[in-house]
């Protein structure tokens, strides 16, 4: 009998549906708008909005990747990810601003992070009491204390260091809060995640600041940029290049790392059945730790770029919430658990939030879509899930009995 191949797993993306229904609907709505409301905007305006959408979408995508990776592997909606993003942004701020931590806080952070470093080493060296691990932890502690309490670095270094630190923090969070709950009821895990996010928010208030914080590293990338197109002016900044490019680089690097190493396969296996994955010789804890490391690093990068893009950081208790939730919605829209899905979802959301409101702006008596901006993420989320219960490129949910 000939070999039989069955259509496996992932279903095709319904581009037909997306374009077939979405675009005409948009066009119709836009025509309706033009007929009913006098239009005073030029093409440059839309190009500007497009650029903004791309920037915002890239940021969402960066954060969404962290959600997706963690969800893909331990089926946890990591509510704390938004706060990891916040921490990443603030750490980079403290690194480049020359306003270092007070010694007690530097000690606290160093202790936490050094323990994380030791723990990561332990995952490869086997035991917390292994000399390498202890030495690594001590060195990290000393170096971090020094770095955090006295150092000032330029923005590139700040970005990289912050990615590193935040990555370690992600591992620590996993070790302390999530690992004891492997195999526990899902709701416990979810609630722990929310608790971690609360913890980070409020510790952030104590450790970082309680205020809106300016975020202006010394770089030319934030310089304003204006150019004339099609009889109008596009107002933007050089970030329009930096953010999408950096995102693309990071996303590509991540995707390569996950697919080219055995890690990707190990991640999927652990996601499906951690116990059996162990029976295959996969060190599941190591895999999960790596996931948190990578996801948190991307979040830190996202936090840094977010700060650059908006010029200031909200106070810690709120900074992570909304971007976090929206990025999370983006991850789900794209299909949680799938890396390309997160990127698609992020871009889609950025586009929707920004370009939609620009397509139907407030004019005269027409109230515009601006007031619904924040609900878009959730409305889209619900619509997508109802149409495709696992997101645009999500996994196949069916189960054989």
């Amino acid at each position, binding site marked *: 009998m000939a070999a039989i191949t069955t259509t496996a797993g992932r279903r095709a993306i319904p581009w037909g549906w997306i374009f077939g229904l979405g675009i005409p609907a948009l066009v119709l709505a836009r025509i309706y708008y033009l007929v009913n409301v006098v239009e005073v905007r030029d093409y440059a305006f839309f190009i500007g909005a497009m650029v903004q959408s791309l920037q915002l979408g890239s940021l969402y995508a960066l954060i969404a990747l962290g959600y997706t990776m963690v969800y893909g592997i331990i089926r946890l909606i990591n509510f704390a990810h938004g706060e990891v993003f916040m921490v990443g942004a603030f750490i980079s701020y403290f690194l480049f601003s020359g306003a270092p931590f007070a010694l007690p806080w530097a000690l606290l952070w160093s202790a936490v992070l050094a323990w994380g470093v030791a723990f990561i080493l332990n995952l490869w060296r086997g035991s917390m009491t292994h000399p390498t691990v202890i030495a690594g932890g001590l060195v990290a502690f000393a170096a971090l204390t020094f770095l955090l309490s006295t150092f000032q670095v330029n923005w590139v270094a700040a970005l990289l260091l912050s990615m590193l630190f935040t990555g370690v923090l992600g591992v620590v969070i996993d070790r302390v809060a999530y690992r004891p709950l492997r195999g526990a009821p899902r709701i416990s895990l979810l609630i722990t995640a929310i608790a971690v996010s609360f913890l980070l928010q409020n*510790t952030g208030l104590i450790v970082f600041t309680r205020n809106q914080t300016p975020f202006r590293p010394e770089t030319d990338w934030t310089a304003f940029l204006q150019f004339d197109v099609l009889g109008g002016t596009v107002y933007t900044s050089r970030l329009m290049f930096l953010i999408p490019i950096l995102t693309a680089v990071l996303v590509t690097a991540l995707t390569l790392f996950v697919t080219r190493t055995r890690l990707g396969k190990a991640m999927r296996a652990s996601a499906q059945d951690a116990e059996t994955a162990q029976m295959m010789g996969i060190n599941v804890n190591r895999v999960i730790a790596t996931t948190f490391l990578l996801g948190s690093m991307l979040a830190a990068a996202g936090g840094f770029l977010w700060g650059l893009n908006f010029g200031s950081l909200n106070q810690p208790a709120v900074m992570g919430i909304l971007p976090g939730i929206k990025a999370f919605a983006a991850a789900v829209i794209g299909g949680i658990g799938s890396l390309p899905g997160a990127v698609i979802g992020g871009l889609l959301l950025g586009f929707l939030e920004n370009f939609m409101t620009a397509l139907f702006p407030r004019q005269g008596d027409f109230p515009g879509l601006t007031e619904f901006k924040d609900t878009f993420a959730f409305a889209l989320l619900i619509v997508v899930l109802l149409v495709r219960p696992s997101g645009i490129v999500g996994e196949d949910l069916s189960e054989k009995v």
Partner: protein
Amino acid sequence: MSDSRTRLRNVMLTLGVGAIVAVLLALVEGNGGAKLNDTLALFAIWGIAALSLNLVNGTTGILSLGHHGFMLIGGYVTSLLIVPADVRERIASQARSDMTPFTLSLSVENAFNAVGLQALTTPETLWVRFLVALLVGGFVAMIFGLIVGIPSLRLKGDYLAIVTFGFGEIIRLSASTSLFSPFTNGALGFAGVPNDFGKSIWWTFAILGLTLFVMTKIKFSSFGRALQGIREDEIAAEAMGVNLARSKVLAFAISAFFAGIAGGLWVSYLSAARLDFFLFFLTFFFLVAISVGGTGSYTGVLMGVAVVVFVQQYGDPLEKTYGLPVWFGVIGSLILIAAAGGWLYRKTRRMRPVLHPLVVVLGLIGLGTLLFAIFGQNSPALDGTFQAFGMRRILLAVLLIVIMAFRPEGIMSRAEFSWAWALRERKDQPSDEERAQDAWLSNPDLNRGSATSSEDPLPASLTAEDAPNAVPFLERGTKPDPDEPRYGEGRDWQPEQDDEEEGR
């Protein structure tokens, strides 16, 4: 003891405790201060909300994260219907209010006037109107519950959680938009909701009692079992005849109804309805209560709510300014306790080595800090004060993480309080005799003295029969009372890793 006598005893005990609670509440009402009064009322209101959330989250196993949305609906409807006339006038006179004359005229009072029930529009009968408003709020919330519940036909697990979360947020975010602001007065909401009810211990506790009654009765009814079946395995539940769609939607609607009621009391408690009274962290607090207490256990939920309310209300000493020695002392003690806890944990889990180096190091650091705080009082390093804003929430979060780490199923797990348990009539653990019988039954032929006691534990009648066909236990065993929750289902141990975790 016979069935009916046990039941009678339980009812009597329950009534007795109820009476004691009532007396205590009366004492508080008379002599406790406003703060204690408020705390109790808050406990009851949040208790109602958490209990109703537990019906969906704990019993049915559908993660719902949109409870604040239902509360919002209940709260706003209640306040729209009950806000006194002078407030309405003030709103009408505000130039930039979106409320229309029609929406402003929506009130229970006007409705009563319209149907000729003028007797019920006096100030003395405010409670009737409030009750009506509360119920209407509950019902509107229930309708929204149905609307949200219907997608649950298509979605499972986390996706459903996400959608409920989305709904919760949408409800809140869109309440202030031009679409709904004629009903909600935009982001500003209503002020001047009568607070005679939300702050009254009697009202809140009566409704809490009612909620508790309904919820526990549901849990221990056939319907509740079906819901628990859904929680365990949807496919199997459906294959066993449970109508998934109907059960889930019904659970959602009941839960939303009580959430709406809680919302109505909540706005009354705050004497205003505003959008920022219904933020996500309200749901978070309930989730904390649920998981601290034990997912699925109503007893546990109430314990959890008590913890949360206590920390919220009496936590402000935590956020005062203290000298650094105090802080260091506290931190040192905490680390010490953590080290001791770690040691205890390893011991009970039979982990080796019991005295892990990390525990030792942690203990030393803690001890060091503590000693430094005690003996270094006068050193310049400890000169200064520190005020920890947000400590309350940090404490709550840390508490939660610790409880979850050590007892992921919560304090009570799924078990409920029951008199049988309180009076130590536990039946969940097999006795040695039962074990021996079981071993004997599973392998009569290989039965050896070492495995069971040398004496044959089984009655002769049973040994004589062909074991599989014998049903002696039917006569010997007592039939469990459906009313009587059994304590300890899976309470005392959990598998290290549940090997039957099928793709739930």
